[in-house]
């Protein structure tokens, strides 16, 4: 590896900036538009979104830690294969953990827990950040991206569950004669909600309409 430890590639005065970057300026879902498969598929309820976000964040953190620690040991030619092996290991662990904690949640998430392996966010951070930065920065980066991803999934999950089911984390918050919006529980609704969140966030980032 040509990269030396401590060499700064992503500019930023402090390590903690890596955390803020993942939550806001480079939010994986709303800005980078990575990991759309779980974002659109399993955010039909807030709890599903939370579990999915946390599982992804955990895998991301562990893979970033390992990839960053091993960045000098892994030959460049086989780095992607080694990242996939590292990620798959933690995904398997997460899969079993969720099964052990709640079989119900595991069933409602379906194949999407296993599909964390191919979440391009995790592989992307391993390749673009962890393999080029030291352990501390990689941890901050993983935490920021993980929290950003979880928050984004929650943003979708809360809206979709509220309109699609009239509930908030399975608690009934709207009157009994609330008319559910069936589309919100279907993938089509996820596209609508995601687009509107992106609209709002882009608007907030710009601070005003373009002229």
């Amino acid at each position: 590896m040509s990269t030396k430890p401590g060499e700064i590639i992503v500019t930023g005065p402090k390590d903690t900036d890596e955390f803020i970057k993942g939550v806001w300026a480079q939010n994986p879902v709303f800005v980078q538009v990575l990991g759309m498969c779980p974002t659109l598929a399993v955010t039909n309820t807030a709890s599903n979104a939370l579990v999915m976000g946390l599982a992804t964040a955990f895998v991301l953190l562990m893979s970033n830690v390992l990839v960053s620690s091993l960045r000098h040991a892994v030959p460049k030619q086989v780095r992607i294969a080694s990242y996939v092996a590292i990620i798959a290991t933690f995904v398997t662990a997460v899969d079993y953990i969720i099964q052990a904690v709640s079989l119900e949640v595991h069933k409602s998430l379906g194949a999407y827990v296993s599909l964390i392996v191919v979440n391009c966010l995790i592989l992307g951070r391993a390749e673009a950040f962890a393999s080029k930065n030291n352990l501390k920065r990689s941890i901050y980066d993983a935490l920021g991206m993980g929290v950003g991803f979880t928050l984004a999934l929650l943003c979708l999950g809360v809206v979709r569950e509220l309109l699609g089911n009239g509930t908030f984390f399975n608690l009934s918050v709207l009157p009994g004669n609330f008319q559910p919006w069936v589309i919100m529980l279907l993938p089509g609704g996820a596209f609508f909600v995601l687009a509107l969140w992106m609209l709002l966030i882009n608007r907030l980032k710009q601070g005003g309409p373009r002229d």
Partner: protein
Amino acid sequence: MDKKILQIHSSPHISSGAGVDVIMRNVVYALLPVVAFSIYAFGLAALFTLMAAVLSCLLTEHWLCKWSRQTTSVNDWSVAITGIIYGLTLPPNLPLWMTLIGGVIAVSLGKFIFGGLGYNPFNPALVGRAFLQAAFPTAMTTWSAAFGAQRFTSLPASTLTFPLTSPQYDSLSGATPLAAMKFNQQPTDAMDLLLGLTSGSLGETCAVLILLGGLYLIARNMMNWRIPVGIFFTVIVLSALFHFANPHRYPDAVFMLFSGGLMLGAMFMATDMVASPITNLGCFIYGALIGTLVVIIRLWGGMPEGVMYAILFANAVSPHIDRFIQPTPFGHRS
């Protein structure tokens, strides 16, 4: 349109004067008989639904224009057309709050988000209706009978449902001709379909008035006649073939042509100038595609009606149709 005394621009210098607002105003004239008949057939419910539809579309457009600091484009009538057509596709006893939400979705997500008039890949009115169909499938498929005795004096209970709550229907009646055919194998008299004596969405029942409105626009050269002709031809040929093969299973061509939203869709929705192909041959292909999809969805789909999805799908395909039907430039030698 702002008038300038001295106009400095390149050719053409002579125009027919038919700008967006003139064409759109004529579409409104063409739709007026349909609107009048729907109010006559469904009474106050139709009046309120249409007003809510038009109002929600107009206000959304106006507010979005203000929000993005553009000159408001409400005056060109195009968004009023969207509102009227959207309202005409709704079932008569739909709760008003659903009508309002659909109107907001139609203009904001169907049109404005793509850049406003001229940039919408889909017919905005149908985007609003498709959203409602997916969000509230029960309300969108509950029909009340036309010509109810108290239609001019009272509103259906469901119309004034409190926002975001489930509607209560006072009477479950009036299956559309297509639903009666699909689920009960019960055909409807062709004369009833022509004159609009059946149940259905507000503006789709009276085939004669829709045809008249369409013919007016075609006569004034404000609509490409190839699109409806392509649709009608395909639907007639395909449904006649299937009816000939198995008359018990498949309805005849006349029924297919005059039932449901086919007339309204072919005349006023498929012909959306922005979302349909530019070339004449492309228009035939586009019409044939819609006709084929309508027949497929109606005969083998889970739903009795498929005009909306057929048109939306063809809208998505229409730029590609244009790409494959490139006209030969003048003077081109192969």
